[in-house]
């Protein structure tokens, strides 16, 4: 279990995250929602050990993540970034092979190649293997980046807005892939999300952040209520339930005076 306790992060004097408590179990998908600049990425960066929180702990099976070596941490937590800004041509296989870094001493071994081809196979990406990463579609790229994180053989995956910049079909495919990975490989997934509907359709639990504080943490049905969404996103919404999932239909930005009133309450 990945446990976040009492986590706070300040950037200079600005408080970015405050008193976050969060548990991620293996096999579970947790979405972190909230408007831009609310601290989602900061939270993910803390989990990855890229930045050190000012207070609080992050533990995995009672080991302190912040005190681990970067390599050790990389074997436990996989990361799927939003972008892959390489300016140089590179095959998909090479891109996925990067995920073996925590296990490679100098040069990737035969076993590393084995793992990579298995991962590609199991994710139905083997036809892309020797293609240039820059030449495949956005959805395929996202899948390849997930494959890279899987090649790390981690217990947990951290994803930064995996459905960004994808068309609707690829959004569904990618999320479906993540759901299956979580179940089949018993991986705990925590991801920052923008799409409320994808989050409520595919997540086991949803965490809402507002100005660095956790507003709520619960199942999609508990969290996706007009009141919470209006508080967090400052929009008026309509929530419908289809096939048991709550779907949010955004209506209007909330008028300024109402925001003001809410803040007073």
């Amino acid at each position, binding site marked *: 279990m990945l446990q976040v306790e009492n986590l706070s992060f300040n950037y200079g004097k600005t408080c970015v995250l405050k008193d976050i408590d969060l548990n991620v179990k293996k096999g579970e998908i947790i979405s972190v929602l909230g408007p831009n600049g609310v601290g989602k990425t900061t939270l993910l960066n803390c989990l990855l050990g890229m930045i050190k929180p000012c207070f609080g702990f992050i533990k995995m099976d009672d080991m302190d993540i912040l005190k681990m070596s970067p390599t050790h941490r990389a074997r436990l937590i996989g*990361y799927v970034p939003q972008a892959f*800004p*390489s*300016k140089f041509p590179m095959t998909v296989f090479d891109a996925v092979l990067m995920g073996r*870094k*925590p296990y490679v001493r100098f040069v990737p071994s035969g076993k590393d190649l084995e793992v990579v*081809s298995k991962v590609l*196979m199991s994710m139905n990406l083997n036809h892309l293997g020797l293609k240039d990463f820059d030449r495949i579609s956005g959805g395929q790229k996202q899948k390849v980046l997930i494959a890279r994180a899987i090649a*790390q053989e981690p217990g947990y995956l951290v994803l930064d807005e995996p459905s960004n910049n994808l068309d609707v079909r690829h959004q569904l495919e990618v999320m479906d892939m993540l759901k299956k990975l979580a179940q089949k490989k018993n991986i705990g997934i925590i991801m920052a999300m923008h799409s409320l509907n994808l989050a409520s359709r595919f997540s086991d639990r949803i965490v809402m952040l507002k100005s660095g504080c956790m507003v709520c943490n619960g199942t999609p049905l508990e969290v996706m209520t007009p009141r919470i969404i209006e508080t967090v996103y400052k929009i008026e919404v309509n929530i419908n339930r289809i096939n048991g999932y709550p779907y949010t239909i955004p209506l209007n930005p909330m008028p300024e005076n109402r925001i003001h009133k809410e803040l007073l309450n």
Partner: protein
Amino acid sequence: MNTDCLTIKNQDMKNQYKALKYRSLVLLVVFFGLLSVIVVIALCVGASSISVTDSILALIEDNGMARSIVWNLRLPRIIMALLIGIGLGTSGAVFQAVLRNPLASPFTLGIGSSAGFGAVIAIMFFNGLVNEYAVVTGAFIFTLLSSFIILGVSRYKGATAETMILTGIALMFLFSSLSSFLQYLGTKEEVHGIVFWFFGSLSKAGYREIVMSGIMILIPMPFMFRFAFDFNLMTAGDESARALGVNVPGVRMFSIALASLMTSGAICFTGVIGFIGLVAPHIARMIFGSDNLFLIPASALIGGVLVLSADTLGRTMWLPHVIPIGIVTSFIGVPFFLYLLIKKTKEYW
């Protein structure tokens, strides 16, 4: 049955990838062979009238004049050319990878122009035209200085590719204008000497120079291979490299320091032949792809091929004149580079 099929397909994928890498390995051997052929040719041609057989015999037996010419003049020149090519090719590949920028080269970080400034100072104030070690020392001190400044700024501001490139470009302009300023003050003789230094020349290459520049160029090599896989990760972004356990700022600063040393070892003794540092890695990348495990040795070999053939052509094409190596490298490097660029444009970037 089904799992069997999967394993086979799986093996297939792995083998295809391995085949790709074997192809690269074979190509490396081919380039090595090509380089050896050029070395032999370079040993056999020159301004003096000794025959090809005499040149080769001179390697193993004492046949008077020929032996002296081959061992004291041609061989050091060839070894120096190879060292320079290896140094500039490798450091160029490393700069491009860790700065994540296809335009990076020893010049981007101002190393070329700081070496130039050091040489100008030596020529103008320390009798560099006569005492060549003054020029070498001057160039070396200033390349070190400029890399210290870059590393210092990076330590302070964070070792991102952008910080380094911007600092490097600022230094490049600073040092080239300082050189221009000194040249402005220079006399006719000094200006002549400076212009010739910037053309680059292998005429002064002797065994002492080879030992010194060999130390600077070959000792960092194993470290470059050691970090090759990390470089791969760093080309895909600092964030994900760090998430995968790479000490990005550390690797970047360490490899920039070493690559600067290599560049310095290459240009201090011979003048600025910087174009190789940009072009050799690109040619290598078009042929070998971006995997630094192959790209680094390939850039070294291609750098060696380019510099050695340029120097051999430069000293024989228009006998008895020597066409400065900096000029010939551009003459043969640019058309080849453009050809590859046009031909492979669809798969490139």
